[in-house]
């Protein structure tokens, strides 16, 4: 019996070897550049960033299957798989690796100090240790930040409710990006002499209750780009509608579903900005170490007119 198990084990390993070799031999064409993409999780904004990246490459003459080969992976938020996938992209000698969201960027950066890495949807690349500074990254990695203009957004909220005594901020305390943004928003609002009430959730299950409690105590709510809140924006919007409470969010996507307004960044355009960085590296015009981290440039005022009417606000007065 033992022998049988051993032989089947060897068989399994042999299959693995064949698969491994099969991959390698098919990929030795040197005129084709390899682009690896590692996305942390399935998410509308992250998906759009990836699509924008690929579209920009195509516009610049780099098309998948012609002169580049794109290997697009998604770890679905699983840390163990994230590591395996990072190793895979590095071993396959990608010419450039695009990483989407902070954990993906750190994971690939841990595996290679040679292959150029471009990140996007990273809020603070310096505190994540990815770059020495945004102006001069210094290593094999650069990219685009999705830091939203929190000052502009909180000012927008305060202009909608000029007599506000207290503003609420609600976010998931276990999402690092949200924590950073909530802190910045709190500072910005308090600077204007308005009180801030912070409420945190740990999962989508908490949102209804926490939001209802918060809605009774404040005159307006700010929500950062938070995955948990984004997933429950319908619920949040419904509560806001009943309580006549204006909400400004970090992301434009959230406004469409249940918030009132924001100055939002377009993740597809951010992906395109990221693509431009990649093109410079593919053409050999620049090295990541010298390419400054790009901040989002395209910001649009987004207003949910339906919600504005429900709150009794004239949409044209929001700016």
């Amino acid at each position: 019996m033992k022998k049988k198990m051993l032989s089947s084990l060897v068989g399994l390993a042999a299959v693995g070897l064949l698969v491994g070799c099969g991959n390698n031999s098919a990929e030795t064409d040197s005129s084709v550049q390899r682009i690896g993409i590692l996305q942390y999780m399935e998410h509308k904004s992250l998906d759009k960033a990836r699509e924008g990246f690929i579209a920009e490459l195509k516009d610049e003459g780099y098309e998948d299957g012609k002169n580049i080969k794109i290997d697009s992976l998604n770890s679905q938020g699983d840390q163990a798989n994230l590591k395996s996938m990072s190793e895979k992209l590095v071993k396959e000698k990608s010419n450039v690796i695009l990483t989407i969201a902070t954990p993906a960027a750190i994971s690939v950066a841990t595996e290679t100090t040679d292959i150029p890495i471009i990140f996007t949807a990273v809020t603070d690349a310096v505190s994540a240790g990815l770059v020495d500074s945004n102006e001069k990254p210094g290593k094999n990695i650069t990219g685009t930040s999705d830091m939203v203009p929190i000052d502009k957004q909180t000012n927008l909220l305060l202009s909608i409710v000029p007599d506000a005594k207290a503003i609420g901020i609600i976010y998931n305390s276990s999402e690092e990006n949200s924590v950073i943004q909530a802190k910045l928003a709190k500072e910005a609002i308090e600077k204007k002499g308005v009180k801030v009430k912070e409420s945190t959730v740990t999962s989508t299950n908490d949102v209804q209750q926490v939001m209802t409690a918060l809605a009774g105590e404040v005159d307006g709510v700010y929500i950062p780009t938070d995955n948990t809140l984004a997933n429950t924006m319908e619920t949040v919007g419904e509560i806001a509608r009943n309580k006549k409470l204006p909400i400004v969010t970090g992301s434009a996507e959230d406004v469409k579903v249940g918030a009132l307004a924001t100055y939002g960044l377009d993740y597809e355009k951010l992906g395109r900005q990221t693509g431009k960085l990649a093109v410079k590296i593919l053409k050999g015009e620049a090295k990541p170490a010298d390419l400054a981290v790009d901040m989002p440039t395209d910001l649009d005022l987004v207003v949910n007119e339906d919600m504005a009417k429900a709150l009794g606000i004239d949409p044209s007065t929001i700016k």
Partner: protein
Amino acid sequence: MDIIISSVSQGFLWSIMAIGVYLTYRILDVADLTAEASFPLGAAISASQIVSGTSPLIATIMGLVGGLLAGLVSGLLHTKLKIPALLAGILTMTGLYSVNLRIMGQANVSLLGKKTIMRFFNDLGMTNQIATLIVGVIASLIVILFLFLFFRTAIGLAIHATGDNNAMSEANGINTDNMKIIGYMISNGLIALSGALMAQSNGYADISMGIGTIVIGLASVIISEVLFKDVSFVKRLFLIILGSIIYRFIISLVLYLGVAPTDLKLFSAIVLTICLSSPLIKNKLNRKKK
């Protein structure tokens, strides 16, 4: 070849967590869910210590100690407050989530450019993968040596007896509560050690890195048991390393075959179901032969 090296290097690190799971699951005969939180606890403690400048070796040991304490809590809940093992584990796991967040101060602590154990080998010119392999081999051998010696002591034998037959052990004057608590502690200490090393290999500690770890641990144990039944304690520990390498290999294989990202979780579940149900299938096959 690449995926074999990758599976082996990661398998060694995961095997330390799998051995921890084995101690509660098979030796003590309880399913302890504390693992899902003691794994990130080890990562959180060691990562935040490394960031604040503690030597990586000491930071790793501090992570292990954190796991011992987590095990102590679950053990006390289970034995002294008579809370069922499954619930005791869930309670500790839930509470530790907040503790882990407090320790890290944020949801994700990056170790890029910091002095980690892996970095020491990186500086000798090794890739991260080889560094992980070396650290994994050394750590798992130390763990097995420790357990080999420990389970020959009076306490170790008493723990074994407690798991085998609680009533009989009690009748023979063994304080089974204390034995269970010690078992819980060692188990979670090892799981936290695995988490501490994994964070240094991954380059970050993350609040959600514990999700699914108990399943990875159980799968490794079960695969090793499917391959070889009825072996001695030390042989079993070595076979768990093999089991955890094989599990990572299967998952890597699925990844390399280019499964669509949306289907990945489904494939993981299918792979696990096959692993978990294989003892049954094997039994049936054996019976047919007879």
